[in-house]
């Protein structure tokens, strides 16, 4: 594959003796010695990072991901570059490219970026361009972005073409986002985005927002309208409303949210340009996230309430309620969750929680009951042992089909460098339908901090396939039956 950013580069070879890897070797050693010994390094600031993930599976192809980022700074100037390789990725696609490069000038009141950049307008109802490597998602824009900030006024103007999967699409997008501080309590803003999408026609989104901040209370409201005047394949208009308020004082916090998204899907079929709040709890537990709600911007409305209470330093409670329907008032998703955590004399921590969830997006219209429990015992200042239990009952077709999934993990940690975790997952889902695969999965993971700049995680065993979700966006993660290595490095 030829690089689109540097088309004169020859095809990048996969061999470690290829010109690319030799060049990379030279670059890394040059960079190391330059930052160590050169007097010029005092004025120039360089940093780099690398994220490498490799898994070797007995049943499927190997998966290899690597992201290398480099940033160079001099005074108000900054330039950056990312090389990305997937050989292959989770779905068998092979890709390698300089996928992100930019030049940036930043002063106290002004910023200009030429090249690749990310952006979010408001709370993401109009535009959200971002990267999430766990979701294998990166919809950065390639073009130009300018920001002016005078304290009371903040204006961002951008133009560029977005990335969709591994390709840059030729549907140029323009947008602007402004904010004005009206008073100590009130900030108002407006956003606008337009693009001409192949096969969908010209689409324009615009909206306004207001933010009130009082002592112990804040409110935020945003309204967005979508027009698609020339569109033949989609409805001509759509709209979205998002409201939130938070009340807080020391030891207590309450957040209430409301959403109403009607034909607000801003997409070319695969790439989604906007990502508003989904109003569902992002759980810490694997099993609770396995049936997470997937955002449907075409037709949904709902509420979420979350409260945090810390009556004393060693005791805290968290409760959450989420409820989403479509515009015919048919319930799509609901989740009632509560947890309590207690720290016993700094010797042990106990945490218990419970979730009752219904998800009508899943086959069989299931509901789920899930108790979760964590126990951590501090053996000494540096050593601790933790036990975690997640138990998820799934009931389908009004309770005719019931099974459970369970995860138990035991973790030994030696601060700051070592963690060893054994995780067992089992299911009785095989009792409810034809089943040919595994019924239980066991994986051992060793997490090592190599100095302050490197983290290495090595896992051996098997792990179940499943959804990985964040912010209402999900991706399927393949099963593992073999070994996996993850290396995070910063330079």
């Amino acid at each position: 594959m030829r690089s689109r950013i540097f088309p004169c580069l020859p095809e990048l070879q996969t061999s470690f003796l290829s010109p690319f890897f030799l060049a990379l070797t030279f670059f890394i050693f040059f960079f190391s010695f330059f930052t160590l010994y050169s007097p010029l390094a005092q004025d120039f600031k360089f940093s780099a990072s690398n994220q490498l993930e490799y898994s070797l599976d007995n049943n499927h192809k190997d998966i290899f991901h690597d992201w290398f980022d480099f940033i160079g700074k001099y005074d108000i100037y900054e330039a950056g570059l990312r090389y990305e390789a997937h050989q292959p990725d989770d779905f068998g696609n092979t890709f390698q490219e300089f996928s992100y490069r930019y030049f940036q000038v930043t002063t106290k009141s002004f910023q200009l970026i030429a090249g690749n950049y990310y952006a979010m307008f408001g709370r993401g109802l109009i535009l959200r361009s971002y990267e999430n490597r766990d979701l294998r998602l990166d919809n950065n824009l390639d073009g130009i972005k300018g920001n002016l900030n005078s304290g009371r006024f903040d204006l961002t103007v951008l133009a560029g073409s977005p990335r969709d999967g591994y390709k840059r699409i030729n549907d140029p997008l323009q947008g602007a986002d402004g904010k004005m501080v009206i008073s100590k309590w009130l900030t108002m803003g407006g956003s606008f985005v337009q693009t001409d999408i192949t096969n969908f026609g010209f689409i324009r989104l615009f909206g306004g927002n207001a933010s009130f901040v009082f002592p112990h209370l804040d409110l935020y409201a945003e309204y967005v309208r979508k027009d698609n005047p020339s569109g033949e394949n989609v409805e001509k208009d759509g709209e979205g409303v998002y409201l939130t308020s938070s009340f807080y004082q020391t030891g207590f916090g309450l957040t209430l949210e409301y959403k109403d998204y009607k034909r607000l899907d801003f997409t070319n079929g695969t790439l989604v340009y906007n990502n508003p709040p989904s109003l569902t709890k992002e759980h810490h537990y694997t099993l609770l996230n396995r049936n997470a709600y997937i955002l449907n911007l075409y037709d949904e409305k709902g509420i979420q309430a979350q409260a945090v209470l810390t009556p004393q330093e060693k005791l805290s409670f968290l409760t959450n309620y989420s409820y989403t329907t479509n515009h015919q008032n048919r319930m799509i998703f609901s989740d009632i969750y509560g947890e309590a955590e207690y720290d016993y004399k700094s010797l042990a921590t106990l945490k218990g929680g419970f979730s009752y969830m219904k998800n009508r997006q899943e086959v069989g219209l299931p509901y789920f009951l899930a108790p979760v429990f964590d126990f951590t015992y501090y053996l000494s200042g540096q050593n601790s042992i933790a036990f975690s239990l997640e138990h998820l009952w799934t009931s389908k077709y009004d309770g005719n089909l019931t099974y459970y999934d369970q995860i138990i993990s035991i973790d030994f940690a030696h601060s700051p460098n070592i963690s060893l975790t054994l995780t067992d997952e089992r299911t009785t889902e095989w009792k409810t339908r034809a089943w040919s695969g595994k019924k239980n999965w066991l994986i051992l993971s060793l997490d090592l901090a190599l100095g302050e700049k490197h983290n290495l995680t090595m896992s051996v065993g098997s792990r179940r396939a499943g959804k990985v979700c964040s912010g209402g966006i999900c991706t399927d993660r393949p099963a593992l039956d073999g070994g996996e290595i993850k290396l995070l490095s910063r330079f």
Partner: protein
Amino acid sequence: MRNLIFRFGIILLLFVIPSLIQSDTKISSAPNFVAKDLSGTKVELKEVLKGGPVLISFWATWCKPCIKELGELQKVYKKYREKGFEILAVDVDGPRSISKVRSMVKGLGWDFPVLWDESKDIYRSYQVLGIPHTVLINTSGEIVYTHTTYRPGDEEIIKKKIEELLKKQPLPEEKQEEKSEK
């Protein structure tokens, strides 16, 4: 397959060895940034460093070890804040959870400043690859300690590092008085 293992080995050597040499001999400077706190006030790292050493902690409301670590760091903050030590908790929540940050921070009784990093500009400039991620910076703006993930007991190492920094660079008396008045 052999090619991949080879490639992984080469990359491991290329990346780990030079920077292991570097980590013992070179102290890098912390990128300056300006960000808004929960009340909308602009906070600039360079200005905060004039008051004493700063610990930056990257976190999000959905990150279980981050909440655990910040709970422990709150105790560290209580102990050293009057001597000039400051924590900046940089929140990297997306639009889904950003509205819950303020109520969670107050609900859990954290006193240190929490900064928004909606577009993850600070996150990227510090080359963060996972959270929780902590960075301890001395008053000269040099990064003296970084750590990714949280294991119980990590706060003890941070305490030792802070004490070393406060011994080397004690806060002037008038600044100490200002801090204790706050």
